[in-house]
């Protein structure tokens, strides 16, 4: 999975959790929770979405790495099976 595929996957999954979410608004460095007003339930659903789409195991301790857009992208690219 390259970065673009990761980015589209992330935005689609986010949209399921927060329909009105607009990725463009997320400034770099800002956490997804803050930018998109996600509470712990939303974030769990977001992680579940990513896991089911990519079957990448995401333990709770890795959550901080997924809290920013860039972190999320690189996390997915790094762990996705070789394309």
């Amino acid at each position, binding site marked *: 999975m390259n970065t673009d595929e990761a980015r589209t996957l992330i935005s689609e999954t986010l949209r399921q959790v*927060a*329909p*009105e*979410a607009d990725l463009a608004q997320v400034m770099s460095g800002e956490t997804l*929770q*803050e930018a*998109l*007003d996600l*509470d*712990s*339930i*939303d974030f*769990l*659903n977001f*992680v*579940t979405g990513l*896991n*089911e789409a990519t079957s990448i*195991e*995401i*333990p*709770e*301790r890795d959550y901080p790495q997924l809290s920013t857009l860039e972190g999320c992208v690189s996390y997915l690219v790094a762990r996705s099976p070789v394309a």
Partner: protein
Amino acid sequence: MGDFTMPSLGADMESGTLTQWLVKPGDPVHRGDIVAVVDTEKSTIEIEIFENGVVGELVVKEGENVPVGSVLARVSAPGTAAVPASGLAPVPAAPIEAAPSPVPEHPEITLPGPEITLAGPEPRRAPMSHSPVIRHLAEQLGVDLAGVAASGPGGEVTRADVERAAQAPPHAPTRASPLARRVAGELGIDLNGLTGTGPGGAVVERDLREARVPTSKVVAPSRSSGSARQESLRRAIGALMARSKREIPHYYLSTTVDAGAATAWLEKANLSRSVRDRLVLPVLLIKATALAVAKAPEVNGFFTDGEFLASEAVHVGVAISLRAGGVIAPAIHDANRLSLDELMLKLNDLVRRARAGVLRSSEMSDPTITVSNLGDLGVESVFGVIYPPQVAVVGFGAVTERPVAKDGLLGVRPCLTATLSADHRVSDGHRGGRFLAQIDRLLQEPEKL
């Protein structure tokens, strides 16, 4: 072979009675001859024939009533061999054998198979005769027994049923103006049982705007247009809070809770769960709050018409912030009896549906206590405003590393601030304090939640 048919003799004539034939089979007829007499409701009229010919079979007998246009007699072309009157044996119409013989009337029709008994959860119809005590009580409280749901073990109406029916608002449909109904739909306000300042006590738009409506009536707004809905929703909730502040004497308590045990247990528990089944901290907080109610029943119930009604059930309202602004607090019913996993499923479902604006009015209508968990958004401590007619709201702040003295040692522990806002008419600082302490104690043994 032409036909002579029943003529229409008037604008509203549908049928006529052939009272008299003036011709017989075999008679020659000419255009304009009077051949029969017909009775309509209004008059007796001689009817004429419009073509020349020879009268054939008289299809309709004297005295018969037939619709306009029916064939009265067959008329053959003029000059054809006059059918000897006697020879013309009317061909009898084929007797109708094919008609199915009517189903013979059987007095008792036995259905094959065992007598079907209505098993299963469906409560059997309550026996119509109620005990005299119940009938007397019903009369006293002005309750129509026919309309009362029976919860007794044998399907009979119990005293509690009658009392509940007596308290229940009359089922008269709420009077509300169409505009009020439309705005209520937009604001997600359930109009049942409300009275307003409009004509005859009808709810009018202004009543909704100035929030004379208890929060329990705030249901998910209907799916009308986004921005107008958000605007009206925010205004309605803002007004609600203002009223709550005005009318309910709040007192506030807060305590710091060591969340170490809880978060550690959570992490261990989630390790063995797939992503989808993982638990989140709020689930533990809600369960602890629900169980703690047993220690301080005065925080769980409704304050209406000047008196407090404690609630046996614990329906925890969970404050969910709507992305589009505004906060609503749908209830998780019987939170104190649900397992953590059940609570998790419920909470997840509630949040998703609240976001999508699809909530059942029952879910919105009867939380007995509310938990607001803005800690999720990093806020350390939060004092909620009570949702009338409830009498308490518990707030949980964010978990942060804090210096804590424990067993004489100074250490750093993950802590959160738990707060209580409660109705001073119902409970006081002492009772509230016992409640918060109990929540704290429960959170120290997460495995028992």
